């Protein structure tokens, strides 16, 4: 079982004009095996939520708590959070020149599990994961994210998700910039992950398109650093029809 509990989370960033509050009290619980979609316009704080939970140093937590199965996530270092079972699929994965995908995946798996994966099954697992995401076998020899197309970067993120098998995955606009074929491949990967016992997903997106392939249990509308509305998957349909205008006009 795994539960990610976010309570009254307040986050600010440093700007030239001093600290600016981005998250203004976010409360959200991702229960065992649940998929939550966070939707919202640009600048509403969606990505800030993702990176704050993962521990990016740019963000200052000024209030609130985040716990994973009762453990204080905010007290952990970035790598401790990952080893505790959190995974962030990034919108803009970072290039690491000279480090092969294969070396990177094995190093990460070893770190997460606390021991090196068994060589024979591991090679097979990697090949399967890459193959399922339409990444060919030469992909493992390339440098991490270097020269990858936008679609390759996103599929590589999902390959990591499947291989590292965290408790809770946060997907930050994994759908952005993907054509429909790539989107389906990525959605299939996320659905394979969701089908496993007790896996939580926090899916952050600007568009409703991906929700046709990944059906969330809950949808939250994020506006101006707060959750403005929440509901079931039907809320996504309403957003598709009406857009974010009514929330923006409300001037939250």
């Amino acid at each position: 079982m795994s539960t990610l509990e976010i309570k009254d989370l307040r986050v600010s960033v440093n700007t030239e004009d001093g600290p600016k509050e981005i998250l203004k009290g976010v409360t959200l619980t991702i229960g065992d095996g649940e998929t939550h979609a966070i939707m919202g316009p640009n600048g509403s704080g969606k990505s800030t939520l993702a990176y704050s939970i993962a521990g990016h140093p740019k963000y200052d937590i000024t209030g609130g708590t985040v716990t994973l199965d009762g453990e204080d996530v905010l007290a952990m270092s970035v790598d401790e959070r990952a080893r505790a079972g959190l995974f962030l699929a990034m919108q803009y994965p970072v290039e690491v020149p000279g480090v092969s995908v294969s070396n990177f995946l094995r190093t990460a798996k070893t770190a997460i599990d606390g021991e090196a994966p068994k060589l024979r099954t591991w090679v097979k697992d990697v090949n399967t994961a890459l193959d399922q995401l339409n990444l060919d076998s030469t992909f493992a020899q390339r440098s991490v994210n270097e020269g990858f197309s936008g679609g390759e970067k996103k599929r590589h993120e999902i390959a990591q998700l499947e291989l590292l098998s965290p408790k809770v995955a946060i997907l930050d606009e994994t759908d952005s910039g993907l054509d429909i074929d790539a989107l389906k491949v990525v959605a299939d990967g996320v659905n394979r992950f969701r089908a496993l016992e007790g896996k939580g997903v926090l899916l952050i997106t600007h568009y409703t398109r991906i929700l046709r392939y990944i059906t969330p249990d809950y949808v939250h509308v994020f506006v101006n650093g707060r959750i403005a509305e929440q509901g079931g998957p039907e809320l996504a349909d309403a957003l598709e029809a009406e857009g974010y205008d009514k929330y923006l006009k409300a001037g939250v």
Partner: protein
Amino acid sequence: MTLTDNPVADAIETSPPGTVLSHLHPVGSFDVADHDVPTGREEIWRFTPLKRLRDLHSDAAYSAGATTATWNTQDGIRVENVDGDEARGLRGVSGLVPNTRFVARVLAEVPTTLLVDVPAEVELAEPIVVDLTGSDASVTEAAHVALRFGAHSQAVVVLNHVGHASLAQVVEVKVGDGAQVSVISLQDWADDAVHLTHHEASVGRDSTYKHVAISFGGSVVRMDSNVHYAGPGGSAEMLGLYFADEGQHLEHRLFADHTAPRTKSHVVYKGALQGQGAHTVWVGNVLIRKVAEGIETFEENRNLVLTDGCRADSVPNLEIETGEIAGAGHASATGRFDDEQLFYLRSRGIDEPEARRLVVHGFFNDLIRKIGVPSLQEQLMATVEQELAKNVLKDAQPVVAG
């Protein structure tokens, strides 16, 4: 992190019609008297700590014998110390005309030459490894090395410098037409060594020359590595890797003199610095002469600063006397660890020291793979690991090999 990927326009220096002299590279002379003792104010000496050179650059006695050369033998390949007329005949075999006092002195005063002679059309499967082992850094000495590769030969020569020495050295390389040659100079000196060296290569018609400079050890290492072209179609790849620790000065100056049409030069130097007073210098000079139409050149220098108290100088220079070229460019970047890279790796559970280790290995990996000598590549990865253990991984637990 600063990054410049300048188009040619930023770097171009035009000369009035009829002038051919590069201000960076005055005409040389074999006469020692034509070369003043450097003061440190000259453009080509301004980064070098002359006081630490033990007068190798000026008027130190050039003794012999403290550094010994040993080598592996291969059938049909001549490697030996020659003297007399034969040694004299090898002075300037690469087309070198001295433009510094120490080079003029080495050619004029050193009676012997270490000659590696690879006949035409011979293809060597194994590298020729010459170990140059210094025994006493209090003895100032000088050496002349000539590497001669016949037409269409294929060979790799490794000059492996180890031990204690104060050495002024000239390495001349003549690459025959159509030959494919690698010259690898490894500076793995002890901490007290001072090494002032000039490598000059004549790259033959349609030949391929790879020069690799690897500097880890020594108190001061300054290498000038020059190439010019004896005919059209020659290609030079110049690779460098250096790791400067506390108090070390490692300086590499490159000069690709495009003296023939359709020639290529590709320079990639990468360095890391750690510890108080670690200083590296990279100067990449490229001159595209009027005759050199259709050439391609690219030079790149990247430095990774691992701790406070280090200094990396990086200066690309491009002089162009013809606009009829296929391509020219340069890039230079010096920076610390990229926080976003570390965040990405750590967000996958990899702890900070291991993430740093991966980044540094990655930084050097691409370059090391291009050297093309597997046994040496393994050795270099191990050396990088030892260097990292001094600072970056000082408090880290051992980890699974990458």
